[in-house]
């Protein structure tokens, strides 16, 4: 009996399609405007929903009188706290951060208190937008305005206004008897810190701050919800996770999960900010009450006032090193704003702060602090850019004081395979050193600088995650295939899943159509976040393809009347092998598919996995700036971003992720911040006043892909979506320091702030 080894892919161990740059499968729809985003859906009889928001940063809601609004002709439903169920406390994951259902419920509709400017207090559904707006004006809310707190350090003070009377700091012994705004303390420690600092020849300690910044997705939140008389509910929305929207709506409204179907639209950016719900439960409740579909679309102002930015932070970093360049000890104190409800990314911030380095003695202490701002949401590598901005500044300063090139100093201390991370495990194969070497060896790193110009380098780390994913592959009658998956395509995952499925099937990617399905059409799949989709859902697609290949071999064996073991799969063809080699002409997928009905029925397979072993990501960025000493304006002259992708499935998309992360990080570094007035009202809720970088602000960002394969993925894939936003703030700050001699410690390093630092010789945010 002939035997043949079954292999996934093209059979010879090399990759034929993974690593190529085919046209993106969603490209034509998006450039022609045919793609349907969240606000594009309309249904017969659909009502217009609008949300009334608190004008106060902190206020007790004494009474809400919506009787006049309800009486207005054309108003079909009004929702206040009285129409929303009370939800008990329960923590659940949302991307890499955690959320509490009780808090989520109170965030989508305030109960006893409004906790930030923009907090939803009521919603209406009406036949027209004008009537809905008029109805909002008729709702009378009796507020008792309370003292508020915006800044994280002020919120930690004993005399600060307390947002939640039932919040007692976790993680300290004994548990405090009085409530505070500090939700929890986290702590990590390794080695002997005192010994490490005693061994140091030089010690640098600095304090830094960063501001909350918004993800800045171009598409505002939008939803259409329809609740039927039979209890069946449908939701269409722009989201990073249709299954999480389904679970959140079910839990917040007391509906069985099986009675809700959620269909994700195309998504105009999310970056973590669309892993939670704001409008969906409200629209669904309005639809339940009105008996008609309800559509709600946020304005840009609402996006800024009411949806989650990432945390702002206050950090103190202390590091010591020997004169020959060995870091001997590192200590960090971090406090992150969580917004109005607990759940900042303080924990990953603590875990990442020193991750690029092999440091024997380290300690990190972190605090999760509530303030009167919108509840934070995930934003690319949540928590890491904040803490690593601070740490990379101190690393750079030590290198300068020791007279060692900053890239060399980082290489001397870089994490590598076998390095034990502060949070516990030893790293497997990682590409920290490789990204540093690529940056140091780049042409960019040796270009001469002119007057008032400076160069900065910084390294960043992010874990990446795996998790639960499903994928189904259906083989069509003509041998083409459809791969169905459950992750909204936020950064090119249609292409990466398509390519991996094509590789495993051995057919060209244009023969594989990727489809993002609703919650009833594919098995549970965790949301698009954590840089997980190309890794985890890609593995599910590869698994499903492997099952399809098994079926294809079985069908060919039946047709040829030989044992299945004697059929191998290579380049999309079944081939007889062993003693049967040459007995039959190879049979294509199309030929086998054409006979599927006669050989056993349709050929299809589903894989459901909980993907483990996501490879950590490291990146190193080099930034050149020119500082205008008269205005404080910083111009980014050159920017090179190096990223370990494990294996770049579609290199163009990887480069896009790298460039996008760098651009967002540069905006975080130089301009972006929320500005509140003395009453805690947001003064810049729009893109004119909240200054994000546009194309004309930036040079071409040179993306360099390094590939250190992840041994836990069949093709070596690591996530790449998040790490690129970690190094930019420090790279820019280090470049400014190199240009001016002033260490900027407070973000953003905007023209007024830098000019003040230049005028003061480094005081006020610089030193």
């Amino acid at each position: 009996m002939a035997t043949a080894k079954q292999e996934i892919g093209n059979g010879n161990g090399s990759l034929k399609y993974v690593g190529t740059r085919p046209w993106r499968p969603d490209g034509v729809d998006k450039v022609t405007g045919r793609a349907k985003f969240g606000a594009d859906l309309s249904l017969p009889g659909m009502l217009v929903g609008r949300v009334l928001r608190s004008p106060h940063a902190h206020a007790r809601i004494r009474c809400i009188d919506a009787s006049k609004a309800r009486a207005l002709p054309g108003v079909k439903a009004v929702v206040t706290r009285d129409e929303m169920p009370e939800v008990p406390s329960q923590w659940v994951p949302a991307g890499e951060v955690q959320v509490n259902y009780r808090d989520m419920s109170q965030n989508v509709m305030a109960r006893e208190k409004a906790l930030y400017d923009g907090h939803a207090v009521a919603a209406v559904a009406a036949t027209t937008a004008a009537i809905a707006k008029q109805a909002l004006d008729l709702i009378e809310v009796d507020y008792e305005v309370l003292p508020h707190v915006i800044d994280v350090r002020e919120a930690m003070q004993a005399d600060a206004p307390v947002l939640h009377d039932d919040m007692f700091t976790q993680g300290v012994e004994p548990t405090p008897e009085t409530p505070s705004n500090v939700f929890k303390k986290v702590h990590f420690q390794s080695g002997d810190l005192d010994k490490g600092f005693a061994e140091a020849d030089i010690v640098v300690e600095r304090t830094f701050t960063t501001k909350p910044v918004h993800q800045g997705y171009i598409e505002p939140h939008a939803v259409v919800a329809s609740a039927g008389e039979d209890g069946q509910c449908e939701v269409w929305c722009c989201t990073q996770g249709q299954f999480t929207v389904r679970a959140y709506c079910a839990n917040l409204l007391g509906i069985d999960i099986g009675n809700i179907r959620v269909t994700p639209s195309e998504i105009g950016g999310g970056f973590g900010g669309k892993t939670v719900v704001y409008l969906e439960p409200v629209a669904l409740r309005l639809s339940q009450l009105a008996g008609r579909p309800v559509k709600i679309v946020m304005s840009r102002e609402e996006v800024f006032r009411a949806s989650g930015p990432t945390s702002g932070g206050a950090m103190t970093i202390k590091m010591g090193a020997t004169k020959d360049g060995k870091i001997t000890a590192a200590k960090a104190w971090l406090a992150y704003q969580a917004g109005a409800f607990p759940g900042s990314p303080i924990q990953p911030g603590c875990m990442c702060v020193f991750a690029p380095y092999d440091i024997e003695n380290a300690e990190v202490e972190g605090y999760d602090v509530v303030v009167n701002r919108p509840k934070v949401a995930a934003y690319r590598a949540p928590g890491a850019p904040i803490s690593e901005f601070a740490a990379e500044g101190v690393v750079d300063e030590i290198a300068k004081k020791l007279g060692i090139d900053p890239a060399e100093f980082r290489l001397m201390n870089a994490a590598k395979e076998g390095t034990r991370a502060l949070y516990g495990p030893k790293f497997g194969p990682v590409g920290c050193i490789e990204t540093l070497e690529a940056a140091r060896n780049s042409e960019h790193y040796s270009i001469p600088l002119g007057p008032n110009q400076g160069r900065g380098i910084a390294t960043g780390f992010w874990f990446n995650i795996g998790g639960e994913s499903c994928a189904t592959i259906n083989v069509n009658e003509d041998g083409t295939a459809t791969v169905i998956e459950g992750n909204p395509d936020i950064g090119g995952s249609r292409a990466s899943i398509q390519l991996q499925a094509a590789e495993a099937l051995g057919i060209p990617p244009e023969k594989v159509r990727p489809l993002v399905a609703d919650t009833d059409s594919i098995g549970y799949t965790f949301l698009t976040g954590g840089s997980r989709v190309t890794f985890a859902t890609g593995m599910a697609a590869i698994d499903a393809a492997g099952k399809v290949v098994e079926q294809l071999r079985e069908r060919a064996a039946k047709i040829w009347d030989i044992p299945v073991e004697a059929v191998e799969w290579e380049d999309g063809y079944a081939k007889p092998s062993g003693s049967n080699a040459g007995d039959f002409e190879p049979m294509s997928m199309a030929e086998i598919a054409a006979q599927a009905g006669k050989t056993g029925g349709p050929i299809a397979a589903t894989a459901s996995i909980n993907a483990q072993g996501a490879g950590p990501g490291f990146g190193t960025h080099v930034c050149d700036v020119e500082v205008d000493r008269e205005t404080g304006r910083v111009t980014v002259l050159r920017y090179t971003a190096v990223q370990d992708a494990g294996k770049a499935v579609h290199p163009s998309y990887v480069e896009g992720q790298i460039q996008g992360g760098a651009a967002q990080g540069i905006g975080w570094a130089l301009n972006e911040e929320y500005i509140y007035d003395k009453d805690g009202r947001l003064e810049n809720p729009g893109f004119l006043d909240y200054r994000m970088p546009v194309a004309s602000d930036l040079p071409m960002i040179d993306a360099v892909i390094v590939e250190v394969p992840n041994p836990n993925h069949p093709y070596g894939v690591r996530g790449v979506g998040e790490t690129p936003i970690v190094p930019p703030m420090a790279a820019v700050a280090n470049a400014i320091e190199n240009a001016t001699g002033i260490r900027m410690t407070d973000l953003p390093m905007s023209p007024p702030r830098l000019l003040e630092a230049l005028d003061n010789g480094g005081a006020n945010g610089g030193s």
Partner: protein
Amino acid sequence: MVPTAAPNPLARVVLPSSLARYTGGVTELEVEATDIRGVIRALEARYAGIGRELEEGMAVAVDGHIHQDDLFAAVSPESEVCFLPRIGGGNEDLQIEANSV
């Protein structure tokens, strides 16, 4: 003479210091197990109450590779099994704050 059977190799377990209240301060120990659930059960048998915290509040790194919600991942003899805070998820009733290695 009957040769003495060699003892089974044991997995080395590293616990975060936040769980030291269950273990009397022990943060490194050895257990015999073939998968993560076996490690958790062995630890629960020694330190009552620790199992729920490990299963619901922690991720696990086996020889450096992080697993979440993966009770049946294999643990080889002489593996290093390191519990660490979950990256995402969690339970406010759990102390997921400290790690000491």
